[in-house]
């Protein structure tokens, strides 16, 4: 789960990382009030869960309070990489001396936390990694020992920081590691981390991704989940316990098991089609779940055909077929549905389906054939 900049900063402050003073605003008027309260020049920053908002015009620095309302008006409602800006962070100014980069992430290969630090901040770290890899300092942490003082020294000396800056960065790092562990984040990133002319070290931006699997023990963070921003389709699927990702194509896809569904999407693409979604109905897909899943997929007005791909292993295929039949009876779907059933008791399942369903249901034996059929149907042919 990704947090907005202002949410991430709130968490970081709880762990002692200093940020600029900021106030969240959902209207131009609120933004002006915020700016007045803060005084002096402010930055008005779009709150979106995507990068590149600066280039998209989502950040405006306003020297005089009068300009804030107009700036906020321009930013609020803006579409940045498909996300509508619903609020802005109005943040006090600072006299920046240096911009640095600091992050801690879960390293999948090393299976431990990895700290990245660079004196070249404010730019994309991947660009730094490509252009001047030596400018990035890496430190791996043993999670059973935590961040050790010598590792902080290794980082600050490797980065050739001056003594005062080293001390400040070291303190931020200690706090950030506490935050990383305390919130069970998979990523905490401060870019830029700045030193100011008056000697402070501040987090000017924040990107925090927390581990969804840990939310059960972090109620305060779970509450930050932004239901408004989520796509209604995805939100409904989540409530139904489905693994669901909305895509931009016209072939709706359902299946059991994440790998199989990903593979089904690929098959549809190979057949020349475009998947409208990823939907994993899970192992024991009963009539109710299948019904809800079909319903959600059909909600998407772009969907022209549905591909339902089941490999019955432990769940027997005839049982899945029964669930599907019952779901189709409950629903009044006019979309063509291609069903591919394979695995344990597949024959019985297919037969049951043939006996019970209406003419908009097609059955295929292989995944590739099913994908072709669904694409054909979506493109208006094959009926």
């Amino acid at each position: 789960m990704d947090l907005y900049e202002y949410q991430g900063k709130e968490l970081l402050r709880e762990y002692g990382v200093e940020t600029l003073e900021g106030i969240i605003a959902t209207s131009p008027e609120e933004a002006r009030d915020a700016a007045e309260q803060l005084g002096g020049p402010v930055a008005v920053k779009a709150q979106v869960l995507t990068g590149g908002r600066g280039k998209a015009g989502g950040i405006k620095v306003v020297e005089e309070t009068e300009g804030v309302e107009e700036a906020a008006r321009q930013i609020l409602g803006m579409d940045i990489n498909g996300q509508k800006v619903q609020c802005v962070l109005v943040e006090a100014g600072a006299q920046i001396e240096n911009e640095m980069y600091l992050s801690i992430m879960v390293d999948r290969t090393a299976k431990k936390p990895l700290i990245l630090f660079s004196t070249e901040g404010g730019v994309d770290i991947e660009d730094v990694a490509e252009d001047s890899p030596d400018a990035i300092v890496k430190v791996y942490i043993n999670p059973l020992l935590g961040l050790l003082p010598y590792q902080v020294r290794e980082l600050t000396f490797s980065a050739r920081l001056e003594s005062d800056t080293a001390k400040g960065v070291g303190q931020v790092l200690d706090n950030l590691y506490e935050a990383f562990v305390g919130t069970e984040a998979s990523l905490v990133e401060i870019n830029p981390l700045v030193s100011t002319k008056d000697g402070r070290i501040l987090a000017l931006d924040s990107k925090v991704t927390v581990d969804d699997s840990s939310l059960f023990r972090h109620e305060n963070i779970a509450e930050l989940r932004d239901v408004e921003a989520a796509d209604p389709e995805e939100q409904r699927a989540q409530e139904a316990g489905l693994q669901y990702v909305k895509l931009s194509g016209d072939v709706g896809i359902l299946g059991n098991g994440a790998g199989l569904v990903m593979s089904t999407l690929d098959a549809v693409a190979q057949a020349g089609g475009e998947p409208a979604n990823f939907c994993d109905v899970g192992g024991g897909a009963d009539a109710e779940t299948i019904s809800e899943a079909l319903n959600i997929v059909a909600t998407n007005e772009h969907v022209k055909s549905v591909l339902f791909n089941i490999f019955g292993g432990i769940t027997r295929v005839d049982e899945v077929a029964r669930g599907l039949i019952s779901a189709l009876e409950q629903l009044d779907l006019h979309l063509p549905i291609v069903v591919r059933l394979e695995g344990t008791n597949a024959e019985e399942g297919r037969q049951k389906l043939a006996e019970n369903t209406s003419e908009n249901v097609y059955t295929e034996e292989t995944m590739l054939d099913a994908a072709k059929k669904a694409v054909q149907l979506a493109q208006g042919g094959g009926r």
Partner: protein
Amino acid sequence: MAILVDDDTSLVVQGITGQQGRFHTERMLEAGTHVVAGITPGKGGQDYEGVPIFNTMEEAVKETDPNTSVIFVPAALAADAIFEALDSNIRIICCITEGVPVHDMMRVASYLREDATLIGPNCPGVLSPGKANVSIMPSEIFIPGNVGVVSRSGTLTYEIIDELTQRDIGQSTAVGIGGDAIIGTDFIEILKKFEVDPETECVVMIGEIGGNAEQLAGEYVQNEMQTPVVAYIAGFTAPEGKTMGHAGAIASGGESTAEAKSEALERAGIRTATSPSEVAELVAEVLSITAS
């Protein structure tokens, strides 16, 4: 032979009395697996399908001396169950549980020593057809043979197993290593085991988006492995930054995309299929080459 689990496997089921634990214990017993003990705190002294239940691993080890465990406990308790198994000297541990927190898994991974193998979490487990089923995989679709299968996925693996079986190509062992970002055992360790398994003549590796374990495996195959490998990667159509079902299946550019993985495997000289059925075709080719 086979790897990880076989006739010598004596299994303890951690969380035997939960819904999943009960269901799969029956299936593992049906497949002829030696399930010697189950654990559910507070139910010690009872039994399930003839398998004695203990309150703690300590008791189970003392009474039944298992060498392998399979874990069905809830996500919040999974790391504790793994530590309990490790501290009781269980040397092969399959954690089926989905949704184990990543920070828990980092702690587990840092504690793991070389003499123990953790498979998973969020995995289907390990199955050696005709020998032992320490998994939630449908043993009905397997037949014994000489193809090793290692995969980050569940049903996709069954799909491919089914394609193999329909072509009468049997399997030595199928290992689901799990779909999470942090798992106990990566492709390479399993490939190493298949490489030294005299029974395994070809390995199928099923990868997906997220991380770079497939690339590392590709390097290993290219540099160290004699046994031929056929690969398949899922997730070409996955959008960037979205978790595709498995917690670890997220393409965030760079090495984590299906394209990057597929290309790297091809570069490493590994036959890479574009569909599950092509996997089976390529395996059939490899085996006929090997046989000739």
